[in-house]
């Protein structure tokens, strides 16, 4: 089923919220890391405007950023991510940020790390305005590099109309071999994962976990 595998030794992941990495790419990242890759995760916000506060709620607007910062660090540890950068932007506000500031920070990371693969959200097809704005900043910045210097960009998409607009994912990964790490990453987000639309409040069977979390897919972003 796996539709790649180019070797990637340096990978840059850019998502706006702690837990985006867990649901969208934890298995893929664990797989690359086992193969020797160095992964940098640039997480733009602390998810401080999230609505999930634990069940029953143990967090609030004031305590959530500190709690989610710890959860993010634990999730990265579970996946094996070696380098976590928290960029300090305000949750929900990425689309209103100074684009030059965003782009310059992403460019700095690209120059410093020279990744061969960048993972982010597909702009316009990723539901949350922060997701779309993050993907837009990454693809805009990578697109400005000379073609020969551009890393491959793999995007996550899940808007209801996304397949009509951008077709099926060209990268599909069976991550069942990495589900222990992926589920540990998801469960590290203690204030979040019990939400009904995420994992829910009851123990899932192994089969349910395989069906719901065993595949990760990406669209290779076309710059032409």
């Amino acid at each position, binding site marked *: 089923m796996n539709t790649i595998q180019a070797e990637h030794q340096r990978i840059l992941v850019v998502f706006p919220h702690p837990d985006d990495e867990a649901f969208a790419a934890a298995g893929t990242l664990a797989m690359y890391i086992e193969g020797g890759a160095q992964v940098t995760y640039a997480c733009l916000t602390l998810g401080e405007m999230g609505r999930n*506060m634990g069940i029953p709620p143990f967090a609030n607007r004031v305590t959530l950023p500190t709690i989610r910062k710890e959860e993010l660090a634990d999730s990265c540890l579970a996946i094996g991510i070696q380098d976590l950068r928290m960029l300090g932007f305000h949750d929900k506000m990425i689309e209103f940020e100074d684009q030059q500031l965003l782009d310059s920070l992403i460019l700095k990371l690209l120059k410093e790390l020279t990744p061969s693969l960048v993972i982010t959200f597909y702009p316009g097809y990723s*539901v949350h305005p922060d997701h779309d704005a993050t993907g837009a900043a990454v693809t805009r910045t990578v697109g400005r590099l000379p073609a020969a210097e551009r890393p491959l960009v793999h995007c996550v998409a899940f808007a209801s109309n996304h397949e009509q607009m951008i077709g099926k994912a060209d990268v599909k990964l069976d991550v069942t071999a990495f589900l222990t790490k992926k589920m540990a990453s998801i469960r590290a987000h203690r204030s979040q994962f019990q939400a009904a639309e995420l994992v829910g409040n009851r123990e899932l069977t192994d089969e349910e976990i395989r069906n719901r979390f065993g595949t990760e897919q990406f669209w290779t972003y076309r710059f032409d």
Partner: protein
Amino acid sequence: MLPLQPQDIQTHIDRLAGQDLYLHLELTTGAYASHLDSTRPSASAFITNAAVRYTNGSISGTGPYRVGLKTEQGWVYAEGLTHVDENDTERLILAGHDSQGKLIVALQLSRERF
């Protein structure tokens, strides 16, 4: 967070009256509302660290609760409040959660910036 006791909240509101405060006020369906159910539009608003001073305020209802604060020039209002941060004795941190435990409304007052 614990389910709020209105008499404790009233005491706290009275204690913060007549002072220069910072306000965080928020109402949200969440950014995924319309993605999860196309009949529900996503709608949210928040203002954070707004300077506010109220002359009197009260909590009302039988739960979920309403809070109204009368300012020198107008009003601050929140409905749907259910929980309070019981560990925060200085600031007043109120939130309203839906049946799934998600935050839908927040009203917070503090002498220091959030």
